[in-house]
């Protein structure tokens, strides 16, 4: 679909935008409450520990429900195509994009993989999104649910307390995903203007 007045692509259908918005809000709530839980203190509480627990639990459950929705939507709509990639030549493509972000962007070089209707993500984006959405997020969701029902966790895993082991994975992945969010938001400013990608998230047009 092309807009009559602009040379723009309609890349983000309404369900993607709603999912993305909810995902973002829940993600931020989880990162914030996750930090308050991990670094809780008697002397300084931004938010009460039990409130943090409740918000973290509810946000995690909502995020996981929308994650399942995302998996189904990607399976049954063309949006899933954007997450498929070929291993052959992947390294070269990713490195090409990496070199562009590292050097080419400062020389105002042409983007090596411009966005088209068929290519919503550049290779580096695609690789990171696939890793995040199909590997890290499922693990953090599973470990999150295990921590929600700690009695089902084995008492001992690899010599560690089972809960401790599961929580370590959950916390490390939480940190990795938090770093991803920071980088993700920064990369969103690399558009025609620093705000153009954020506008796209609202109106769907790129």
């Amino acid at each position, binding site marked *: 679909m092309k807009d009559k007045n602009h040379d723009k692509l309609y890349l983000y259908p309404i369900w993607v935008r709603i999912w993305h918005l909810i995902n973002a809000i829940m993600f931020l709530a989880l990162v914030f409450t996750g930090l308050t839980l991990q670094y809780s*203190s008697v002397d300084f509480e931004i938010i009460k520990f039990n409130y943090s627990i409740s918000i973290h639990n509810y946000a995690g459950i909502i995020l996981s429900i929308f994650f399942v929705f995302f998996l189904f939507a990607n399976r049954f709509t063309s949006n899933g195509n954007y997450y498929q990639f070929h291993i052959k030549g992947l390294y070269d493509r990713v490195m090409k994009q990496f070199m562009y972000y590292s050097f080419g962007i*400062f020389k*105002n070089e042409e983007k090596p993989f411009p966005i088209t209707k068929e290519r919503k993500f550049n290779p580096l984006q695609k690789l990171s999104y696939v890793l995040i959405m199909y590997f890290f997020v499922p693990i953090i969701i599973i470990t999150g649910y295990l921590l929600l029902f700690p009695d089902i966790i084995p008492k001992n895993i690899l010599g560690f307390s089972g809960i*401790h082991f599961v*929580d370590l994975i959950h916390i490390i992945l939480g*940190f990795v995903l938090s*770093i991803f969010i*920071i*980088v993700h938001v920064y990369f969103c400013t690399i558009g025609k203007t620093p705000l153009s990608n954020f506008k796209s998230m609202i109106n769907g047009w790129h």
Partner: protein
Amino acid sequence: MKKHILIVLFLAMALLIFSQNEAKTSVKHSKENSKCFACHGAHTYSFQNDMIERIVTKRMNPYFIIDSVLYYEQNHKSFECIDCHSYDYTEFPHNNDLRMEQMPSCLDCHEGDDATERFNFEEIYEEFHESVHSTKHSEEFTCWMCHNPHSYKINARTNENVLETIVYDNNICLSCHADVDKYQLISDKEKPNVIDSHDWLPNQITHFARVRCIECHAQITDDVLVAHQIQPKSEAVKKCAECHSKNAELLASLYQFRAKENRSKYGFFNAAMLSDGYVIGANRNVYLNILSGVIFGLVVLVIFIHAILRGVSK
């Protein structure tokens, strides 16, 4: 072949005799106490009723049945029954007036006792008298209400399995707070409901299984190894961060008997808790904290430089 069988039989006999002697010598006063256990260790007892001139069998009052196995495992296992109870109990039928006998309190024996000095009984006594158990109830509330004289044994110091200690110690509290009959010995309240009164507590089952009641309901002091100053309900710990933080209170109470070197193993704060569980906020890792801080700082720095270079190159 016969010779071998004889040797094996001889060794087996010797082992049997030795083990029997061992069992006998390990239980002090078992012979004297066996006269009491003959009736008080069973559900029924028999005696010669001279008035009707025959042996009769009666049911033992269940509250007067003493489990001899538990008795010979507990703190005062070397005691003869009449060390605490009147000598007149050696006569049967027991004199009815004996029911009125004044039972000894802990301090009657332990005050100034060098052998038990490390337990600081005097301080425990003072703490107990400042606790709600003492201030809100009559003198009927004695040490024996919690510490069953026939079965109580120290646990927290001696049992490496903290989860077992938690169950053991919590069962002491529940012996009243979940038992209407015993509770009403000293209270007019109809039915204590521990589940309802803790409905605000997230993950109630996990908390009940992983911490002792006294962790939140007793004032922790340095002088006494196990806190005895039970606080009023309004003073109970309700702030989660008291335990869920780097300076977790649990380390000063439940885990105080764990070796100090265990407390920072592999960089984990409060590592003494880790073998039995995990406390969010208390078991953070110093190395992971540093690593995550460095990575976070580097990411922000790279983004900052990248943004500036982008701005300059436009």
